[in-house]
């Protein structure tokens, strides 16, 4: 799967018959990324940075403003709904909200059978046996076939959503924060289930999260997003060991430490302010107003995300002044402001 310069802008204040939107919210603004078969790639970034929008661009739930998404060598970014159908079957999505993503008025069996019904696949009896098989696959009791989503817990609902996503045996599953709405203990179960299924079914995952410890556990590679752009991408351990973008450093330093005595106080990078509005993003590097390393050039020139270096753990960073090995960020100064 290859994303090239994916752009998604949302017009603001539209809806009228005559009115034209003047402003655009740049949710995703030029993302290029390669996703390899069989890997798990993590997309991280703070709320509103465009992770979920990117996920919906990949699965073509949104139409792209520009750029291309190609799947198995075929550009799918301009296909019509009808032409898209065979590709829809090959890539599926697991949603964030286990309460919102299941229709409360339909029985679980019929929700999981939806992919078959929507595509006119399998007859009733066959459909049911497939649904039972799927329920077992994701660790649900097949006897609960006739229940309603309201009868299930959050973790179980997420399993239902997973069963629905797996129904058509997709190759790529986009998980949009699949565990962030769940209790920590349930999170582990779902993550283990995802890992088991990946081995069993040979799945490729795009795993969106804002919890870095979860991402570290499941992902082979991680892409860090900030304000609609990817600012750094690398193999997981490389990224955690040697973050080069100041934003990545700040993110990593915000991971809570289990031991209260071992607070990473000295290394802590605290960013100033809030993320700027994606309606009017800053000039140059989008991170420069909050960046502790920003210099004059950052305001003017937009740094490009280089090609990932295969000799260097596929590391790529979009920064004029990336952090070098062993260099500290002078955090104290930032904290006082």
């Amino acid at each position, binding site marked *: 799967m290859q994303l090239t310069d994916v752009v998604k802008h949302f017009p603001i204040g539209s809806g009228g018959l005559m009115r034209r939107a003047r402003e655009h919210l740049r949710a995703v603004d030029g993302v290029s990324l390669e996703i390899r078969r069989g890997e798990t790639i993590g997309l991280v970034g703070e709320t509103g940075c465009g992770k979920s929008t990117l996920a919906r661009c990949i699965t073509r739930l949104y139409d792209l403003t520009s750029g291309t998404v190609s799947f198995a060598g075929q550009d799918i970014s301009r296909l019509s709904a009808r032409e898209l159908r065979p590709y*829809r079957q090959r890539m599926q999505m697991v949603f964030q909200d286990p309460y919102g993503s299941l229709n409360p008025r*339909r029985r*679980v069996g019929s929700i999981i059978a*939806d992919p078959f019904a*929507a595509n006119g696949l399998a007859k009733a009896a066959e459909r049911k046996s497939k649904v039972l098989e799927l329920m*077992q696959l994701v660790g649900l009791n097949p006897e609960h076939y006739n229940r309603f989503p309201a009868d299930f817990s959050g973790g*179980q609902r997420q399993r239902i959503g997973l069963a629905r996503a797996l129904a*058509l045996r997709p190759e790529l599953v986009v998980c949009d924060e699949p565990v962030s709405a769940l209790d920590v203990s349930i999170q582990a179960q779902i993550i283990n289930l995802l890992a088991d299924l990946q081995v069993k079914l040979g799945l490729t995952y795009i795993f969106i999260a804002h919890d870095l410890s979860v991402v570290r556990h499941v992902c082979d590679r991680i892409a860090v997003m900030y304000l609609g752009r990817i600012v750094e991408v690398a193999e997981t351990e490389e990224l955690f060991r040697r973050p080069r973008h100041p934003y990545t450093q700040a993110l990593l330093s915000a991971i809570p430490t289990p031991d209260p005595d071992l607070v990473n106080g000295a290394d802590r990078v605290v960013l100033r302010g809030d993320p700027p509005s994606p309606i009017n993003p800053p000039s140059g590097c989008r991170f420069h107003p909050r960046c502790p390393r920003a210099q004059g050039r950052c305001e003017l020139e937009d740094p490009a995300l280089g090609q990932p270096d295969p000799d260097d753990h596929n590391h790529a960073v979009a920064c004029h002044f990336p952090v070098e090995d062993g260099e500290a960020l002078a955090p104290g100064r930032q904290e006082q402001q």
Partner: protein
Amino acid sequence: MTLTPAAALEPAALGSSAPAAGEAIEGRSPWQLAWVRLRHDKVAVGSSIVIGAIVLLALFAPLIAHLVGHGPNEQFRTTGLSPQGIPVGPGSTFLFGTDDLGRDVLVRVIYGARISLLVGVVASGLAVVVGVIVGLTAGYFGGPVDSVLSRFMDVVLSLPYLVFAIALVSLLGPSLTISVAVIAFFSWASVGRIVRGQVLSIKEREFVEAARSVGASHLRIMFVDILPNVLAPTIVYATMLIPLSIVFESTLSFLGIGVLPPTATWGNMLSESIAYYRVAWWFVAFPGLALLITTMAFNLLGDSLRDALDPGGNRRFIGSEVKP
């Protein structure tokens, strides 16, 4: 089954709702839950019984006419009118008295129920079908489709219905069909508005996205995924629409532009009785009471349905929208 079950991961959580031994594992649908709530609602049961009784009376109107021995349009000039030509009051021969032409008011009220129920149900049904389709389309597609359909609904809602009805009837001549058409035409837009509003919020829910991502067509999403979620308020509104339609029909008949005499409807009976209300109270009272009781029963049932179906209304709510 070729795949190894992963059930070992969460064995305890599977039985979390802990069904009693022997209980079939079948979830109760939101409709079933609403039904249970409705059955425990005395007002709902009472109004249903009243409506049921009216429906039965209407269905068996010919039988009742036969038992009483008075046809609905039959005139009893000797027994039904006093020597001065004044209607006869309620008594053993005419339980509800007679009208100005010596016809049995009881039999005519019962025959009137047929017209009222027919018009009420058919016109509301038509209005709901059209309103749901238009509202669903407008809400689901949004954008220019929504703008055009919504403005059209606004136009319909702003038309003065009586003027319009009188104009239409003077062109086509009064009849039952015209009445039903006029009532449905002036009712669907409010249904459409309600449905559109509901759809606007429901189409943003993630399960609609999920349906799109599995490749469901627009029609399938509209009718399989969204429609069941807007049905509850629609049913409530439809129940409220029936008495409105009945009153609407009575209004038309009262004005002489609805169902024509001699066919008995509550509206034209009331219209005929105006001249006699000083001497024959029963002539006004019984059709009026019938109208009152019927509309009230439907309205009360609608209220109870709202309580039973509306998830926000909560009263012992066990349904789907509550997050644990």
